[in-house]
């Protein structure tokens, strides 16, 4: 029965095949299934709220564009994370540039500090994540919050597992230190 199979790997492949075949309903289904994942990983990777929706849309435009070329050797989720990581980086850069331009040219960008969205725990978590380096944050988010394995993270960031392990170790230390500091609580 399809109802029990919609989340399985097999049905994921079928969904991807139907997307590539040009079924609008399949694209709709793909977006429905992975929108939440993309949004949460972008947010946790530090994309500011004002850029979040645009970044998420960029992720799916990339997916729609490049899916026909996607070979199924890698898991789709890993591939999606890779796009998210790339788009998060672009969005953060864009936000920095907008902030810079905002101070020089008031009409060019919003600029300024943005309020972190979400509940109390999410805000506390976000502030602690902001204290990590970009590389540490990436590994920490994928391992601790997105539940990826060391091997999957190594595939996403295209580095050996030993590197992932070391970054995770450092990230945990810095994360705990950030939580212990009064500024984070």
């Amino acid at each position, binding site marked *: 029965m399809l109802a029990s199979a919609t989340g399985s790997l097999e049905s994921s492949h079928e969904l991807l095949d139907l997307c590539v075949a040009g079924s609008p309903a399949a694209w709709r289904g793909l977006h429905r299934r992975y929108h939440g994942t993309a949004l949460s990983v972008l*947010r946790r990777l530090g994309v500011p709220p004002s850029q979040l929706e645009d970044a998420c849309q960029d992720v799916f435009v990339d997916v729609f564009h490049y899916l026909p070329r996607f070979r199924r050797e890698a898991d789709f989720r890993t591939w999606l994370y890779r796009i998210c990581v790339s788009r998060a980086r672009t969005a953060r850069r864009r936000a920095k540039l907008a902030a810079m331009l905002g101070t020089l040219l008031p009409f060019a960008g919003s600029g300024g500090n943005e309020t972190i969205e979400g*509940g109390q725990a999410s805000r506390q978590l976000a502030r602690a994540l902001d204290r990590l380096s970009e590389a540490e944050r990436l590994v920490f988010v994928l391992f601790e919050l997105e539940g990826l394995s060391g091997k999957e993270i190594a595939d996403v960031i295209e580095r050996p597992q030993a590197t992932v392990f070391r970054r995770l170790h450092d990230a945990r230390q810095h994360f705990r230190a950030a939580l212990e500091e009064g500024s984070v609580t």
Partner: protein
Amino acid sequence: MSTEDPTFPPPLASADDATALLIQRALNEPPSGPSEEQSWARLEARGTKRPLRVWVPVGAVLAVAAGFWLWWARPNDDVVLTAEQLPQRVAEPEHPASSRPSDAPVVPSAAPLAPAKAPAPRSTASEDDTARCAKLAQSGHYDDAASCYGSIARGNSMAAELALYEKARILAKAQGKSQEALATLNEHTQRFPSGLLGSEVALTRIELLSQLGRRDEALRAIDQALGGTLGRERGGDLQVLRAELLAAQGDCAHALDAVAAAKTHGVHPSRVEAIERRCSGSGEQ
């Protein structure tokens, strides 16, 4: 140096300390940001266009600077290139673009929303059929497209589920056959109660029921939807529709309740102004 893969520790959230508690609480909090429905609607509207955002002023400044530099650094004498001096044509790559060796996304350019032109890596009968149906719909052969999707929709696979929804959409939106579309959606609900596109089916069904004037059924469907995923995603829109239907039935008291509920979902007051006017004008019943 060891080449063995390291053994990763268990995630922090699985421990029993303050850090684990914080992570667990954060993971359980409702997500912020745009809903999936809103995001899809924007994506559909946006299509292939990428917003220019802050790159417009930056690009303009760079273009002016580059133009000035080219003018300033122009050679004094006219140079005539001979055939020998022309650059050789770049050799064609061994692999066509569609078979790039890496799965990694390349630097994105303006990307079409649904290209679906490159061949699928592993094509099966249902994918070929789906591609054929999609082409028929794109070229405006709606009757053929609907029957094409209907033939795929016979099985129990995901292709069948999606094809059944696609058939209903063509019947409703392109052909205006609301009754047939409704019957197709009812079939979808029965055959795929937990299908991938359950919310879309429920929403389209509600729209069709209200278009057809079957208000009681539409109201029942809305009440049912409000308790599920669709209610969380589109609660405001559903309440507006509910208010309209109730007001049309003359049940202003409940219509105004629905208006109030819609406003708590963040619906702009202008969307429910007409209902409020209508109900306050006629007096609550």
